[in-house]
């Protein structure tokens, strides 16, 4: 049985969305929105909550099937191929972005001498191994990792809440800056992209509560982002946070749990638990890439596709390091194509499905 449960869906959404963006988002939001950063985050959470219910309703209407399978029924073979190709290219881009970001973050903060290519070369086989086993295995891994990640994150952020300076995030709302906050919403799009991985996760029959659960999950993710951003600003300071490329790590490094002697410094929590979240996020995107590629190339073996995808991500990732402003470019590409992948295409398919009385 290759279907996922509601609980698995919650953890997939949670870990995929917070994968790597959770480390960089405090800086982006502090720069773009200042103290009112929670406004664009919560608004975007609601918007993406609506989009995720669209995807979930589609998956629910076609139990046991992924988007490739039912898009074929809805828009025909040609339309299905176009959509699938788009998703393949999109997930490939996201994969490259995530792999490069992970390598960059690890090199800048933990393993200074290790070359970029080594991170990706060693990581890709592991993510590929996970993706090779299919959605059911990935979903179960998320169930395990999600709980550990959530608990670790709560421990860290509650301590940041206690040790941080509340003054740094006040006032919570500045009426004159609401416009600025709303203008920062485009910076938050990438933080919520990841819901489109649900298109490769078949749902079982029934699952009446799935859309509501998915919507509430997105709201929860929004609140988690708000907590992360606010606690990071509390620890580091609103003006200072802009100078760090990975502000969450800078904030975590300032937390000390005095009562826990040798584990006083919480870096170790992030090194173990935080990396779990990143790996989970990259793996599920890799899985999505493989799932679409497998459907497009039915004659090729799954193993061959996993290996080919890994090699492609590795090569493109290395090329990306050589291009100036590569990160900015790729973020722009992902932002706009992500809106299509997570929003436009599922909405169109849902409309067609409703027209054909399938949803």
């Amino acid at each position, binding site marked *: 049985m290759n279907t996922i449960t509601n609980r698995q869906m919650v953890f997939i959404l949670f870990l995929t969305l917070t994968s790597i963006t959770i480390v960089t988002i405090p800086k982006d939001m502090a720069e773009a929105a200042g103290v009112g950063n929670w406004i664009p985050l919560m608004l975007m959470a609601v918007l993406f909550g609506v989009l995720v219910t669209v995807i979930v309703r589609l998956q629910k209407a076609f139990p046991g099937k992924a988007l490739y399978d039912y898009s074929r029924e809805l828009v025909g073979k040609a339309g299905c191929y176009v959509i699938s190709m788009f998703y393949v290219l999109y997930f490939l881009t996201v994969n490259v972005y995530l792999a490069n970001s992970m390598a960059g973050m690890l090199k800048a903060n933990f393993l200074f001498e290790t070359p970029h290519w*080594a991170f990706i070369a060693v990581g890709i086989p592991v993510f590929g191994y996970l993706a090779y086993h299919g959605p059911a295995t990935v979903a179960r891994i998320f169930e395990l990792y999600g709980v550990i990640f959530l608990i670790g994150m709560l421990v860290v952020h509650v301590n940041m809440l206690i040790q941080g300076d509340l003054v740094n995030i*006040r006032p919570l709302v*500045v009426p004159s800056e609401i416009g600025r906050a709303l203008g920062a919403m485009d910076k938050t799009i990438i933080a919520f992209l990841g819901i489109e991985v649900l298109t490769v996760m078949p749902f079982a029959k029934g699952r009446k509560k799935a859309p509501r659960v998915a919507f509430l999950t997105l709201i929860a993710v929004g609140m988690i982002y708000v907590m992360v951003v606010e606690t990071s600003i509390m620890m580091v*300071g609103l003006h200072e946070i802009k*100078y760090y490329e990975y502000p969450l790590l800078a904030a975590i490094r*300032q937390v000390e749990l005095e009562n826990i002697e040798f584990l006083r410094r919480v870096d170790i929590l992030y090194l173990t638990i935080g990396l779990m979240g990143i790996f989970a996020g990259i793996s599920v995107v890799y899985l999505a890439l493989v799932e679409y590629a497998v459907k497009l190339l039915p004659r090729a073996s799954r193993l061959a596709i996993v290996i080919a995808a890994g090699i492609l991500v590795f090569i493109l990732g290395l090329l990306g390091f050589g291009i100036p402003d590569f990160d900015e470019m790729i973020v722009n590409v992902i932002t706009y194509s992500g809106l299509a992948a997570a929003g436009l295409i599922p909405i169109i398919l849902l409309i067609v499905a409703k027209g054909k009385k399938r949803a």
Partner: protein
Amino acid sequence: MHRHRIKISIVLFLVMLLSTGCWDSADIEHKDITTAVLIDKTETGYAFYAEIASLVGGGTGESSQGSMPRSQVIHGGGATFVEAREALERQSDQRIYLASVQNVIFTETILYSGIEHYLYRFRQNPEYRKRAMVAATGEKPEDLFSAASEHNTLVGLAINDTIESLVDTGQLYHFTMGDVLEALACPCKGYLIPRVSLVGQDVAADGYCVMYGGICKGYIPIDEGKFIVYVQGKAPPFHYAIPYEENSITVEIRLKKNPTKVDYRDGQIKFCLDMVCQADLLYMKDDFAMDAAAMEEIEEKLERQLTAEFRNIVHASQKVYGVDYLRFHEAFHIHYPDEYKQVDWKAAYPEAEIAVDVAVELGGGNIDYEPEA
């Protein structure tokens, strides 16, 4: 069979790849564990001093008896920070490990000349912990470190412990390098760096250096600065001796609340600090029974004296140094965020009206007190 060969090839490739690795492997015993870094400005440029924990060594024998490691101080100087750092590294036979730095110490020379440049270096170095304490010293670096070696202690840890214990008793104000960087980034914020000096051969805190941006604006002795923490709203209990008739009564005072009211009208900023303290009588020089009248009189006296103390602190910050290290700008920012953006705080702060009022609630505490029936 074919799939099996592919899997084996992948595994072999990964093993070969891994065997080229270990780029970041650096065993801890091959690093110089640096507990304190001192930065000084010299005539020719800058100087770094690094205190390194020397290891007695081995898994058995002396070190297992728990003896403190001796320290070793290396220093290097140069025209720029880069040259000074290179000179420092040349002194060391192992890699200097900065993640263990407990204390960053600045001499007064460099404080008065400006530490902004160094702070930018510090910020960009991921190895440094931003939670390292910061201290200033008027002593010569050689004197400071040699005093520590006499006692076979580590200067970094000694300064840390001294400051921490004073923070617990409310006598000192705790500042980390992360706080310094935050203050540097915020144009309105001043800050205080605890200053240490040698008393005999011991390290003692003797006051604060008043800082704005990266430059020192002055010095506050510890006696004059001991209530700064309370104006800032932090509240460890402190002991206060108050003369009463021919007696001397010691009270324990705890700050209950410290709300700051802000008003901004016609370009005039007004702050009103209404502090409420809980005081408990601890002991007195001569034993006598307290009555309600005496309690009331002591209470009023306490209020007057504490008000005067806190007003002096505000006056020093506003008028003497013109640096807002008492964080009034934060209260103004919270209540008037739009006006805050338009005001030049450096000019406006000294002109602000700050009213300080202290109310004391006096309790019997340890002393014999019979309230009127």
